[in-house]
């Protein structure tokens, strides 16, 4: 890295120690690293004036300019977050066969390795953008806690309501592994809506108008936006069908704004909502329901308000209940 040449090892070491100290602050330590990063960066940005003075003191970074120190701190935080967050996603993209997308694609056969590499690069691009990264927490959590694998396996074992709803792609095998991979790719793609792509927003959404995913209204606006996004992504993500990208975008919309064929988007919407605030909670009470069952139990009451498919919530609740998740 450029900094490695410009700054001495002791300076970089001191920076590492400082970020380590920040992550050890009890209120940050209890949070996942990605959330901790957001809290630390928010703090630094809000208190930059005061911190600039502190950073110049001998106990901190007297030989660095405040801006340099902040830049190095941000870089070190990113390295930590990257190392802790992306491993499950990298592992998925390294080891999973995504060639089934060829059967869904309108653009012919693509080398699977090339497809996965491009998808990986795209995910990295999203992850490097701080604003997008903050919003990727549910995605990271779903991969970290194996949620897609666990729930899809149960859905396919039970062959109940969700199974019937999601197995509508008649051109691919209705086997568990394929659908796990499919839903994971949709989950990875859904964060693209937070990524500022020049031209796409401006074309679809006039300034001041409602934006995805904040709004569930303006179907026409969503369609225009999605079409623009697909045009942009087709070249970036070879071999990923437009329908899958569309599902990723639609997975931000409530169930009543979606069509019958969008069940995978409804399921992804529920999973991402479930893991939006997911924590490795320390639970000292034996009378508590497990975290996922609790969330789904509460979601039953909030399905109308939050826009969840109530039948899906009921099915997922039974799965969580039976497995004590």
């Amino acid at each position, binding site marked *: 890295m450029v900094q490695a040449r410009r700054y001495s090892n002791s300076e970089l070491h001191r920076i590492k*120690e400082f970020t380590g100290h920040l992550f050890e602050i009890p209120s940050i330590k209890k949070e996942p690293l990605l959330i901790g990063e957001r809290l630390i960066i928010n703090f630094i940005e*809000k208190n930059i004036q005061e911190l600039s003075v502190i950073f110049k003191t001998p*106990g901190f970074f007297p030989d660095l300019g405040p801006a340099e120190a902040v830049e190095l701190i941000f870089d070190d935080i990113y390295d930590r977050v990257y190392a802790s967050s992306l491993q499950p996603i990298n592992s998925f993209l390294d080891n999973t066969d995504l060639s089934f997308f060829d059967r869904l694609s309108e653009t012919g056969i693509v080398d699977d390795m090339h497809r996965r590499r491009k998808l990986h690069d795209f995910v990295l691009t999203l992850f490097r953008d701080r604003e997008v990264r903050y919003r990727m927490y549910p995605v990271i959590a779903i991969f970290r806690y194996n949620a897609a694998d666990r729930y899809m396996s149960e859905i396919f074992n039970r062959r109940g309501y969700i199974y019937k709803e999601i197995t509508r792609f008649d051109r691919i095998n209705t086997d568990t592994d394929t659908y796990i991979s499919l839903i994971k790719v949709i989950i990875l793609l859904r964060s693209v809506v937070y990524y500022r792509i020049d031209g796409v927003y401006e074309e679809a959404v006039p300034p001041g108008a409602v934006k995805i995913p904040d709004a569930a209204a303006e179907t026409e606006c969503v369609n225009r936006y999605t079409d623009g996004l697909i045009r942009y992504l087709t070249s970036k993500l070879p071999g990923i069908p437009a329908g899958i990208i569309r599902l990723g975008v639609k997975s931000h919309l409530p169930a009543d704004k979606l069509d019958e064929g969008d069940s995978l988007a409804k399921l992804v919407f529920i999973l991402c909502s479930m893991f939006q*605030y997911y924590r490795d909670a320390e639970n000292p*009470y034996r009378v*508590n329901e*497990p975290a996922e069952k*609790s969330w789904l139990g*509460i979601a039953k*009451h909030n399905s109308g308000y939050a826009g969840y498919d109530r039948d899906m919530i009921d099915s997922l609740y039974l799965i969580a209940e039976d497995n004590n998740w």
Partner: protein
Amino acid sequence: MSSMVKRKIFQNLIPAVIILSLLQNFINEYAAFVMWSTVAITVLFCAGVVFDLFFSVEFIVKSLKAAKRKEFISYMKYKNGWVDLISSLPVLILYSVPFFCILLKSNAQSGTISPLAFEILSVVTTIRLPLVLRSIRVVKLYGITGLHNSEMTRHHTSAAGTMAVITAAVVIMLWSGITGFSDPEGNNKRSTEYSRLLVELESAATLNNLDFRELCENTLISDHRLIKINYNDGKRYEKLSESEFSKYYNSGDYIKVSGKLCSLTVSVKDLKRENARLNMLIFFILLGPAVAFMLLYSRHFSLTVSDVAGALNSGFRKRDYNLMIKIKNEYKEEELYRLAQFYNDVYLPAKLRKRDMKKEGSGSPITMDAVKEFDEKG
């Protein structure tokens, strides 16, 4: 040594001494049951005196400290001060000190006991006061911090367990007092029995013109309870030598029965053995409920009450604590579970709706002081 370390040592010392004292209480009875030597029994008795003294000092110190804080009434009523009291001073004053004095003054052969001390000890041992009050110390173990996560569990288990143990203790003391099946009562009966025997022997010797000594020894030689006969003319008949007698017989292990022509030394060890067997049973009757409340009821209470209350408390107070509470069918009509049902069905959904509506807060969990601590760490 810092005050915190001292306090920690003291906190661990008290439970350890309670357990040792309970062990001593049991071994004391066991020793009488299996008829250990007088030395062993004396050592055990002295250990009992030391424990009584320790708990008396503990009570006095705690009382003085509480009084200094003007919390004496609170200590006595709510912090088991009354248990500290009844399990220490009464047994020390009414049993340990008098018996210890007797032990110092008397020797095994003569067994002299002052009438007042004898009366006190007679009543105290009849109602099994030392055994029962010392066993009550088990209740003090409820106060051990760290035994339960929940203060509510500790408090309710302690209250219920204490009530059970104290009720059992009162019943045992009343039963012992009323039935009178204990050492002094048995000794009196035995004394009467041998007095009557002596009178009969004396009458038989006089009426039949027989040699009293010969008649007496021929009759009593096979009596395994008889230790010694002291004739009024200075002659004596002994089944045990002096050293053997002092090895196996302590004051209280035998009685002296006086007649016109002789006095008998009669063993009451068999009565003591039977009494010790009963005392061991009583010990377990008192300990049983205490341990059951400590281990079983506390778990039940924790699972059905305090954990639910704790989970509700966390859910109401902590922003990120949003776990539902399990509600079993058998409890669902109980007040606490109806509250939990409301919490699951209404409060938590509303809490999450509110959270979802809320934008990211402007407050930060990091403080500038926390940042500056980096400098202090070096």
